[in-house]
């Protein structure tokens, strides 16, 4: 009797645990709103386009974006100066000046050759239609090559489809335009 009860309890426990882990997996794989990036380099952008220009839009407090900064570092390490990289942090106008100076800011700054800048009140993000932290766009001579996330889940380190596509585009192995889901916090509050 005890073993049957134990088996029942164990089954329930396993079910709950698996359900919890599945919920966690589900949350991890839930992407943000897909930003429809302009196909051509938008006018009015403070960033000067180059041959290959890569821009990562980030929320300075989003824990999921830590994985995106890490993935950017890996892409740039493989690209070996073939791309001009920028990390644009959201700087709300109402926020304090050091609101952006988080560990993410410092991590981005630590990547060689990356231009880190604050995007006051999210103007630049809006120009590139970026609404989720971790949104990455790649332009080649002003033409959009890639738009999407470079991680495989929220805050998930490691290989991802977006990272692989970006590297393939930069190396010239692929010319096709591609999009991937973006995993991160929304850059702007969903106003009612």
């Amino acid at each position, binding site marked *: 009797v005890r*073993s049957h009860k*134990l088996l029942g*309890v*164990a089954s329930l*426990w*396993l079910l*709950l*645990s698996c359900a*919890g*882990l599945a*919920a*966690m*997996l589900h*949350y*991890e*794989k839930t992407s943000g709103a897909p930003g429809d990036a302009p196909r051509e380099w938008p006018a009015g952008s403070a960033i000067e386009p180059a041959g290959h220009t890569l821009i990562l839009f980030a*929320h300075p*407090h*989003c*824990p*999921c974006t*830590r*994985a995106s900064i890490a993935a950017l570092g890996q892409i740039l390490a493989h690209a070996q100066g073939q791309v001009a990289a920028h990390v644009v942090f*959201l700087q*709300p106008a*109402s*926020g304090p000046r050091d609101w952006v100076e988080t560990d993410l800011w410092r991590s981005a700054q630590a990547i060689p050759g990356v231009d880190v800048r604050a995007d006051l009140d999210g103007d630049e993000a809006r120009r590139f239609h970026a609404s989720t*932290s971790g949104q990455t766009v790649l332009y080649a001579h002003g033409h959009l090559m890639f738009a999407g996330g470079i991680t*495989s*889940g929220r*805050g*998930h*380190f*490691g*290989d*991802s*489809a977006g*990272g*692989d596509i970006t590297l393939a585009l930069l190396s010239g192995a692929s010319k096709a335009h591609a999009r991937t889901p973006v995993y991160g*916090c*929304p*850059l*702007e*509050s*969903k106003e009612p």
Partner: protein
Amino acid sequence: VSAAIVPGTIPFDRARSHVIFAKLQRGVALRTDRSFLWLMVVQYLAGIIAAIWISPRAWEGMSSHLHPHVIAAIILGGIVISLPVALAGLYPGERSTRHAMAAGQMLMSGLLIHLCGGRIETHFHIFGSLAFLSFYRDWRVLVTASAVVAIDHLVRGVFFPESIYGVLAAPWWRSFEHIGWVLFEDGFLFISIGQSVREMFSIAERQAALEFSHAGVERTVAERTSELTAEIAERRQTEHSLRLSEQRFRQLAETIPGVFWIKSPDLRDLLYVSPGYEQIWGHSCESVYEEPESCGECIIAEDRAAAEIGAVKAARGEPYETEYRIIRPDGNVRWISSRGFPAFDEVGKLARVVGFATDVTERKSLELKLLEAGRLETVGRLAGGIAHDFNTILTEVIGHAELIKDAASSAATKYQSGVAIERSATRAARLTQQLLAFSRKQMLCVENLDLNEVVLGLEPMLRGLLRKGIALRTTVQTRLPRVQADATQIQHMLVQLALNAQDAIPREGTLTIQTASMTVEAGLAPGDDTLPGEYVTITVSDTGAGISEEVMPRLFEPFFTTKPHGQGPGLGLSMCYGVAKQLGGNVTVRSKLGAGATFTIYLPSRDGKGSIPPAEVVKWAPNQPDKYATRNILLVETNPTLRDLTATVLRKRGYVVHEATDESDALKIASSLYSIDLLVADEVMPGTTRADLAKQLQASNPDLRILVTSDKLRDFETVSAALSGLTILQKPYTPALLCSKVLAALGNH
């Protein structure tokens, strides 16, 4: 208990080794459960801390809320650890607990990997957990854990490949690549677990062997302890018994008046003497322990031989009984009766001599008084007998003397009275001879005798003497040793015993006389007073009426007779006794009323001892011419009647007789004479002894012959040694015998 032998090891209980192994396994499981319990709690807390630290909040623009990871760390982490922690608390050490622990640990790895953003480093948690799970030393636990990992990877590989591989479409074998690494580690861990289990089993076997050995040792100790306890109890019981025995012995030895003693078989070492020794001997017990011979030194010299007889018998392992006198330190003489008994060990060897000595001085004193009283009674009876017989004889003599003195008596009457007086005097002489024989002072003509010759020579005479109906049987031992004895006296003794036997046989019967030689050993002497030595015996036995117990003690008393009045004065057996004693022997009697009597005469054997000089043979020659007539004879006789008679008889034979009444008179006469050829002297002379007189006279006249007349033999050996030319004439004597002795003395140049 099923004991088995493991080659090269000591015996042990195999079933017990399995029990110990199970116990060790359970101990390992318990310890590991406890460790995992704490690990689960720590991991849970670490997950929450990591979630708070890495992703505390989720943002939307400027607004933020609690990050789902923190919620997941708290709730999901709680769910994951709930079952393992509960089982570890409720059922520690059980198999289900460790399998739940394995599954929970793998789920916790998944949670932590999620919380840490899937970092590759966090995946080491899985491998670390597998290693940790191997602490259970149960490969099945690793199977459970690996199964959880495998299922997770397979499910996610199918449904969410990018969550694992970072690509949207991964090949099918990628899942097995990750599982393969887990199995790779499992392989090593299985080996490690196998080794650990074997070591644990070996420990269990050693433990079982040790327990088996300990159990054996403890059993042996318990058995030995039990034996020792029993031994101690037995020893205590023995000691108690010994104490009681010792107490009883001491009460016995110290209370009974007398001396208990224990000596070594050789009688040299005194092992024990009771305190009575101090009272009787007057010396301390310590002194006799230190010097055992001091006990014997107290014995009076003449009694030591009797004491030594006891020692000789004790050394032979025979019991003995002896009596002797001791002198106490205060000078008192005590009579001691000592009895000794051999004590043999279990193999029959003489181990000890034990004995008991008592002070019998009082008893001895009483015995002496009784003896004295008996002697006085005997003397009284002797005096009465002598008085009666002599009165009869004297009446006859006086009467006949009156007739001779009467002038009116005819010559024929006077002659008849003289003959009657001579007959009476002869009876008186025989009477005194018998008395002297009893008093052992008779003159004996001792010579080297073959008793067989005496017995066989006497046989015809005895046949004639004994009445019809009595058969005489004579048996003699061949090669009989010779004895020193007087043949005539032996014949008298045999005749006396034969006549007594005849009187004891009512009508018909047998009288047996036999000779033999025998050795009388110390302590085995027949009768009370036969000394040890070599003897020749003459046994006279009859088939008569026997002797009653009342008569037996008085048998050898003089004048004691059971015969009717007028059939002898009752001196026959006393004469036999006296003669035998005088010759150094003894007479003993064995008899039972109605079964005859046996008298045995013991005479010392002289073989090999050097015979004494042949006795003087007195030869009577009544018509011998006096060839020494005219020789000077000095006659010294106190009794005037006898002196006159002797002088008259000698003068009639032609001798020159000078009469003297005493020693001074004799010396005076001797000094006036030119020479004296013969001194005839009475033995008893007032004022001096005949030896002194003879010595003085022989000093001036070495050729002087000496004839001593004596009624009994006194100091014979002394005189013989001091004087030469000595002849003895026993009283009473006839004139003819006197002349014969004078002739012999004078002829003995």
